[in-house]
């Protein structure tokens, strides 16, 4: 079975079966948040896992999507289309800032992306005329039940959102898996492991990094748009440093090298704070500790460890 088909089947099955475990509609809401985070993290898997770059400002791209969806309907662009506009905007911004900073190595990129995220946050907080300032702004709602009703299905809003986001995640994961096993993805993985060797084969290292950076920015932006539509409200916190850290932590916990890691990381770190108040209370410490412990004890993250468990079981 090809890796893409396998990812498609496994992820679809998981998302189809998950609602069987939901005791109430509230869990669909958590499910939606998990899925939206999975989408951001899948983008991060492309960046960190495929090409090996750290971004500490991905919330900035997430916020670009979220605010595109919040702001643009007032200018006559239909909400659904704002997802696309936001994604294009995020891609352009990523291309613009990525070009100079991706020539440089690890630390510089980390800091520059961190600065980028804070810059976005700053603009969103200070330009109140456009963004509503620190209090945020209301997002025009869309009727997510409509497509289901068209098929004659009566459905609650949260549940409709769950299925829409599930489709988005499956698409996102299939695209990322396709990429991993394609010429472009191979170039990314080559750059990750040895940029000198990659360059000696004609791979344009800077360009390859930039491509991954742009792709990951688009994932984050689409996730941001979905969250804005789902919450019907956005605040500058979407661009907050901590949000970038959240995305990062989910990525490393799940395991940056595979898309399965994205789902696992997002699932654990989205649902735990919702269910355990202790976790929410000590969120910073928890995230920090998880990052350190994962890197020290289990550098590949959970997904490879779980995969190993399965393959051992089969033997």
């Amino acid at each position, binding site marked *: 079975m090809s890796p893409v088909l396998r990812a498609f089947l496994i992820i679809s099955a998981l998302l189809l079966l998950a609602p069987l475990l939901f005791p109430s509609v509230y869990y669909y809401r958590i499910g939606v948040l998990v899925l939206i985070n999975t989408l951001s993290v899948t983008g991060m898997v492309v960046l*960190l896992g495929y090409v*090996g*770059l*750290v971004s*500490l400002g991905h919330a900035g791209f997430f916020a670009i999507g979220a605010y595109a969806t919040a702001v643009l309907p007032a200018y006559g662009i239909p909400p659904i289309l704002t997802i696309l506009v936001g994604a294009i905007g995020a891609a352009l911004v990523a291309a613009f*800032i990525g070009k*100079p*900073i991706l020539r*440089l*190595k*690890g*630390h*510089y990129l*980390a*800091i*520059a992306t*961190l*600065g*980028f995220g*804070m*810059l976005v946050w*700053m603009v969103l907080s*200070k330009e109140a005329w456009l963004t509503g300032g620190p209090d945020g702004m209301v997002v025009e709602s869309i009727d997510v039940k409509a497509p289901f009703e068209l098929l004659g299905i009566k459905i609650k809003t949260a549940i409709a959102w769950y299925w829409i986001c599930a489709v988005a995640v499956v698409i996102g994961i299939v695209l990322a898996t396709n990429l991993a096993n394609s010429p472009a993805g191979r170039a990314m993985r080559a750059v990750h492991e040895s940029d*000198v060797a990659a360059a000696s084969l004609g791979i344009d290292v800077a360009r390859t990094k930039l491509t991954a950076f742009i792709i990951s920015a688009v994932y984050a932006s689409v996730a941001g748009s979905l969250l804005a539509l789902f919450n019907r409200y956005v605040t500058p916190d979407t661009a907050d*440093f*901590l949000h970038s*850290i959240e995305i*990062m*932590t989910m990525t*490393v916990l799940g395991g940056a090298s595979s898309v399965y890691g994205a789902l696992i990381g997002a699932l654990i770190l989205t649902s735990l704070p919702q269910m355990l108040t202790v976790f929410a209370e*000590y*969120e*910073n*410490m*928890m*995230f*920090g*500790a*998880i*990052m*350190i412990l994962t*890197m*020290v004890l289990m*550098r590949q993250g959970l997904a490879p460890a779980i995969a190993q468990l399965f393959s051992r079981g089969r033997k």
Partner: protein
Amino acid sequence: MSEFVQFCFSGLTVGAIYASVALGFTLIYNASGVINFSQGEFVVIGGMTTAVLIASGVPIWLAAPIAIIAAVIAGMTLYKLAIEPARGAPLVTLIIITIGASIFLRGLMQTVFDKQIHRYEGFSGEQSIAIFGAALLPQSIWILGGSLVVFVLLVWFLSRTKAGNAIRATSSDILAAKLAGINTNSTMMLAFALSAATGALAGVLATPVTFTSYDAGVLMALKGFAAMMLGGVGSPAGALIGGILIGLIEAFTAGYISSDYKDAAAFLVIFLVLFFMPGGLFGMVRVERV
């Protein structure tokens, strides 16, 4: 004129703080090639601990050393528990670890202390001194003096002491340093301890002017990093001058352009340096061996 001088004073004051942060970065970078993203948290540990101790009646001369010791313990623990076990790991791993440490320490301070903004009175009172029609806080002199002293001690330490030489040797070739009988682990531990002390001292001195809170570390680290980049990564003199320059740029941005975007000045500098001057003012571009 008086306005200009005023901006210079405030720029020099915050610049000296950034310089101290940058010096802390430089120490660890020189010893280990790691940029410690939790450097800003050391500053906050220094400021917060002092503030809370003073508020509970401990005199400053006792509170300040306790705060610095607290930061040193944090720095050494960080090295022992998180950096040492990951020695030889890819750079990305080390970056994630120090980011994790930064977030962890931030959470720890939020838990141990609180989410309030803290400050305490300046060491020599709050009565500002008028110079050219501008007001200079006596604490600013403490801050500037403190940074200079730290800088001089650091340069002396790195170039004139055995431990300092060990740090430099460890950074240039860890294997050779080991062969020469240098205990590279304790050398790096020392670098983390000193770097934490440098950061905490900056926090102790700065808090009367800049205030502090559990989440102030990121921005502090970012500006310290901008300072280090501007000065040239790895160079103590570069860190000092870079810090002062970032402070001045920020003060003039706030004064003449927009105080809303004063924090953006540091990012702009980072981008400009990356673009036009990757080596910084005093740095050199390292040649990589293939």
